[in-house]
């Protein structure tokens, strides 16, 4: 294999054998992580999971106890100012400096010795991109939280970084503002094509912004993949609880025909459109939103939903506007989310028998490793 080709194929940002220890306690232990050029990678996890430490290490703001960080395949360190200047960051609090919005946004450019006239052009352009066109001369100290955070984003984007760090940028916002800003940030990040690491503890936020998601727990990367797989097919109890669903079922593919895989999970047969060779051990999951419930014994019309079987209601709890129903059949547990209207119509209560229906396209599946 050609060495130069290997370098070209390397991810934009990656790290190997990372370990960070504070006073003998290991807070980050990540053998390998890589971000492809232009992608937004969301790092999810509870507080104290090591997300922010990993971000600081990848962003050359902190030296790891062990391991190294590579940009485009070349090792870089916290002392390397040129490498550091390819990075920009937005943190929880905007930490705006005294002065105008324009001064703040131009700060990084000034550090890099750019001329005032050039700075003004770049600042004007980036403020427009974050929806604050013409705000250059306002005082940075009179802004609302959402405005200040958009200025902080502009201050990072104006540097045209090759690697952008976002450390819980919306965690201090109201839910309402958070929702709208996360959409805004997602659109801006998608438009900039910048490789971004987005740390958050909020999966809704992660799903809105991310091309790929990694989940951290106690310093380790316990899951990684596209948002659908990570949030839709949790391999263990912890991750399932973390994303708010039942753990994935374990099964074995017993047949494949007509584009459908037939999976046996502890006596329940599930059909999926995901194609896996017969005999493979797989993880299977259905999002609660995709499961429809009917009164037990009802005659179901012929339809496109390939999966239907009776189950017993184990637990019922309201969640947001809908009702989360945990179902059990032969030791297999899964969940359905139904509207409050439907729940009261069906008289959903623990112990009741229902028919669960879901389409084969709604079944997520991957081979267990």
């Amino acid at each position, binding site marked *: 294999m050609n060495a130069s080709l290997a370098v070209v194929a390397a991810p934009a940002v990656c790290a190997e054998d990372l370990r960070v220890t504070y006073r003998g306690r290991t807070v980050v232990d990540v053998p390998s992580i890589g971000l492809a050029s232009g992608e937004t990678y969301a790092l999810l996890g509870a507080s104290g999971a090591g997300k922010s430490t990993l971000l600081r290490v990848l962003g050359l*703001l902190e030296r790891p106890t062990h391991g190294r960080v590579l940009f485009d395949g070349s090792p870089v360190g916290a002392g390397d100012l040129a490498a550091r*200047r390819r990075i*920009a*960051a937005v943190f929880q609090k905007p930490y*705006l*400096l005294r002065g105008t919005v324009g001064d703040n946004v131009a700060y990084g450019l000034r*550090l890099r010795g750019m001329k005032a006239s050039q700075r003004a052009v770049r600042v004007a352009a980036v403020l427009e991109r974050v929806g604050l066109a013409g705000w250059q001369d306002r005082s940075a100290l009179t802004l609302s939280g959402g405005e200040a955070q958009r200025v902080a984003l502009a*201050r*990072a984007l104006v540097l045209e970084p090759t690697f952008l*760090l976002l450390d819980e940028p919306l965690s201090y916002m109201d839910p309402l503002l958070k929702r709208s800003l996360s959409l805004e940030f997602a659109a801006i990040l998608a438009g900039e094509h910048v490789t971004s690491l987005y740390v958050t503890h909020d999966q809704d936020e992660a799903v809105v912004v991310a091309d790929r998601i990694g989940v951290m727990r106690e310093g380790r990367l316990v899951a990684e993949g596209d948002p659908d797989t990570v949030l839709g097919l949790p391999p263990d109890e912890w991750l399932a609880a973390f994303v708010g669903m039942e753990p994935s079922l374990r099964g074995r593919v017993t047949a494949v025909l007509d584009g459908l895989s037939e999976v046996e999970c502890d006596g329940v047969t599930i059909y999926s459109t995901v194609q896996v060779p017969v005999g493979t051990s797989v993880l299977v999951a259905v999002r609660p939103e995709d499961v429809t419930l009917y009164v037990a014994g009802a005659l179901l019309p012929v339809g496109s939903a390939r999966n239907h079987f009776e189950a017993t209601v184990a637990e019922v709890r309201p969640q947001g506007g809908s009702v989360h129903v945990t179902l059990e059949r032969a030791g297999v547990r899964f969940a359905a989310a139904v509207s409050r209207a439907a729940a009261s119509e069906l008289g959903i209560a623990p112990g009741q028998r229902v028919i669960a229906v879901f389409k084969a396209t709604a079944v997520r599946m991957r081979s267990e490793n």
Partner: protein
Amino acid sequence: MHVYVQAIIDAFALLLSGSGEVWPVIGLSLAVSGSATLIATAIGLPIGYFLGMSRFAGRGSLILLVNTAMGWPPVVVGLFVYMALSRTGPLGDLALLFTPQAMVIAQVILAAPLVAGVTTAAIASVPRDLRLQLRALGASRFQEAFEVFKESRRGVMAAVIAGFGGIISEVGAVSIVGGNIQGSTRVMTTAIVFNVNRGEFGLAMAWGMVLLGIALVANAALTMLQQSGTRYER
């Protein structure tokens, strides 16, 4: 209350007439404490800056050392400086005892730890995350330090004012090493002690009012600098 009224009238008369030793003593006080503050700032500010910025093993001990130095009673500092400058002392050859220079030395020793200590606190109060943010925007070590300095300038000003305010009204050290020699080492505080005991209330009051004025202005400035306080919450 007559005694106060009379003394204040006399004091104003003395201050306005500009005659005698009233103004020269004030001038010497300001010169001695001013130079001592300058030197103490030159020493204490870099130390405080370093202690406030860095994280290293032994930093805690150094801060404790500075705090301990802040706690030395002025008369004890005066005693040690006197002994150093006395004929048999290690610096006896310089023949500085009972000169303004001796008073500056004693006041530098009193003020420098104060400047260093307050500066340390001011610099350390700049949140670590703000410094992280500066670094993450591409600030070099030097640029980061400069910005931290700008952010904590109120605290650094407070350090200098606290140093000056502390030594201008100090009497123990200066009276020991200066000796209160008229026309040479008599400053406001030693002059007040000397003249009160001689019953010269008007003269003592003249310096007392000036000293009080300086102390209250310094105090007001410190209060203001503290209250305008931190805005890092946003």
